[in-house]
């Protein structure tokens, strides 16, 4: 039996993709790779198309190496990965919607991102016009006498993103949850095609607003890999500083919001103030509260001033004083834990199978962090721990966030202490030939994968951005089963999946 590693080296090496090789394979090798994934020998990091080929990024467990496989689809078909490895399901449905490429053997043939409202089909290639009257959508059946359905969304009760949830419930107990997403599909990958690097970076930073730093970083790293660029050391460290600030701001926001959904508004109030501290420090440091457009291919667009360092040191002092209090407040409030312990349980096998990243994966025992593996500068020079739990419930996902807050604070301190001096930006210029690059970056929500193909003139020909939520949303459906309907907001918030990042 050929191992996944050997399978990944089969076929013809395609145009050099940096830093990971890409091989064009035939049907049988493609399917063998899918089967190996199905057996748990590797993680699927992404599955996407550029219209002509379908690509898959795989992390091999045996060697801890990442590799890309591609399959040509001259007849508009490719063998489905999903029927051997279910995490590919929605990705294949999306490929069908955008590029009209059919995954043969795909168990679920319903359209996913395409709601029949764009006025055209298959916008990723020569598109056909269609009536924008909206398609009907057949939700999966849940049968049985006492069952009733509860439709929720796309417009929700809170200030959150739009999506539809269809609950089948037996009294108060959820028997099945089915998600329907795609409401915030903005056609970003098509907007990317032909965009200058500058415009593409702005778009990447707006895939998911709460992860604007992580997305800009992932895009920049993919471009820099393609162009084999050196980024000035100071810029590399400033990027990490921004990434950790974003992580902290989101984790504080999340912990407060989860507790608020359990009606514990005290935590929400305190976390909201902490988050505001961070955003204001970011404004002082980089001139934008969310740090949008501050990371660009080649470096960063804003340098850290003395005033910025002071703002951050002041924030660190406050945080070091208050975080232990927050931990105690959560840990000592049993009435709050009564809601969070045991709710929304994610089985470890499922987290592994879906290669589920971020706090959702880590709370269910999947110890993965892109800062460690594949790893990138400057984290190889920094000391940090990442959160871990095996309880898999809402409580576990809160504790992992606390762990990550406690890890990010010293990271920021280390960065401030050791920040190299010098340039902050190198010129990203084209190299007169088509180039490909990819990157995996740890956002607060989990690992973001970006693949970019640059044309000879330096514009982006194709770019794919895969949000961590693709592998978390399906687990929410599983996690809610057997919980009561009233606990859904709590479970949902503890996942905090991105709609915009997923719908793209």
């Amino acid at each position, binding site marked *: 039996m050929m191992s996944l590693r050997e399978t990944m080296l089969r076929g013809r090496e395609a145009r050099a993709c940096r830093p990971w090789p890409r091989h064009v394979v035939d049907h049988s090798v493609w399917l063998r790779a899918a089967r190996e994934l199905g057996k748990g020998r590797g993680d699927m990091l992404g599955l996407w198309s550029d219209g002509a080929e379908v690509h898959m990024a795989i992390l091999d467990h045996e060697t801890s190496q990442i590799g890309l496989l591609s399959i040509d689809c001259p007849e508009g078909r490719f063998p489905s990965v999903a029927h051997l490895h279910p995490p590919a399901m929605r990705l294949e449905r999306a490929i069908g919607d955008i590029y009209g490429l059919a995954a043969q053997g795909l168990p679920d043939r319903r359209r996913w991102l395409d*709601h029949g409202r764009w006025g055209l089909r298959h916008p990723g290639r020569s598109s056909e016009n269609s009536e924008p009257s909206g398609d009907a959508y057949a939700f999966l059946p849940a049968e049985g006498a006492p069952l009733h359905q509860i439709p929720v969304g796309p417009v929700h009760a809170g*200030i*959150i*993103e739009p999506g539809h949830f269809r609950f089948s419930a037996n009294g108060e107990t959820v028997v099945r949850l089915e998600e329907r997403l795609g409401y*915030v599909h903005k056609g*970003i990958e098509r907007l990317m095609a032909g965009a200058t690097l500058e415009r593409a970076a702005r778009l990447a930073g*707006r895939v998911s607003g709460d992860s604007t730093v992580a997305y800009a970083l992932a895009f920049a790293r993919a471009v820099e890999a393609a162009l084999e660029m050196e980024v000035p050391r100071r810029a590399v460290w400033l990027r990490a500083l921004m990434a950790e600030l974003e992580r902290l701001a989101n984790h504080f926001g999340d912990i407060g919001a989860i507790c608020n959904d359990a009606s514990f508004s*005290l935590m929400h109030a305190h976390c909201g103030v902490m988050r*505001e501290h961070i955003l204001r420090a970011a404004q002082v440091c980089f001139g934008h509260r*969310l740090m949008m457009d501050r990371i660009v291919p080649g470096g960063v667009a804003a340098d850290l001033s003395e005033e910025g360092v002071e703002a951050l040191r002041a924030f660190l002092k406050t945080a070091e004083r208050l975080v232990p209090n927050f931990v105690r407040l959560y840990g000592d409030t049993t009435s709050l834990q009564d809601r969070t312990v045991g709710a929304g349980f994610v089985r470890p096998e499922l987290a592994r199978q879906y290669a589920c990243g971020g706090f959702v994966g880590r709370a269910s025992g999947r110890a993965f962090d892109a800062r460690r593996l594949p790893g990138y500068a400057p984290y190889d020079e920094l000391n940090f721990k990442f959160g871990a739990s095996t309880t898999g419930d809402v409580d576990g996902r809160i504790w992992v966030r606390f762990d990550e807050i406690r890890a990010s604070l010293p990271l920021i301190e280390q960065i401030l202490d050791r920040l190299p001096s010098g340039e902050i930006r190198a010129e990203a210029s084209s190299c007169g030939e088509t180039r490909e690059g990819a990157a995996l970056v740890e956002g607060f929500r989990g690992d973001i994968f970006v693949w970019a193909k640059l044309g000879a003139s330096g514009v982006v020909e194709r770019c794919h951005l895969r949000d961590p939520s693709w592998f978390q949303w399906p687990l929410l459906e599983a996690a809610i089963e057997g919980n009561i309907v009233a606990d859904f907001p709590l479970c949902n918030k503890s996942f905090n999946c991105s709609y915009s990042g997923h719908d793209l």
Partner: protein
Amino acid sequence: MRKFLFQGLLRNPLTEAAPSPDQDALAELGASLARASRRRLGRSLSIREVDAGSCNGCELEIHALGNAIYDIERFGLRFVASPRHADVLLVTGPVTKNMREALERTYNATPDPKWVVAVGDCALNGGVFAGSYACVGAVAEVIPVDLHIKGCPPDPMALLKGLIALVEA
């Protein structure tokens, strides 16, 4: 927990002074506000937020309005869960085609008199997503808009100034 609550009693509030209303906003509103109905509603407005395809950045800053520092409720502004309870719709995003109908229906479900505030550059003209096959563009192309608050995303101060103008116009 008791310690936390006790400290809260002793400390000064974190809430910052109110900004003055945005002049441009007052000018934009002057033309569109029906003063009679505003008088009837007094100084209190219920707001329903609708994400019509935003990247979620605008939502983050709208959320921040509720924190102890901006404390939006002191101005009589309150976020409500249903459009049927709302006087104001706060709309973000470049109105994706997949959200267009939901936005229209939300608007229709909001009782008169009502106002629409378009938040962010996307809601103004589609922002970076303008021209996409999947986006309509400006919110004003779908429902009538009374006030625009610009920015990508507008920060909480900009949001507050715009909303205060709405209460005081």
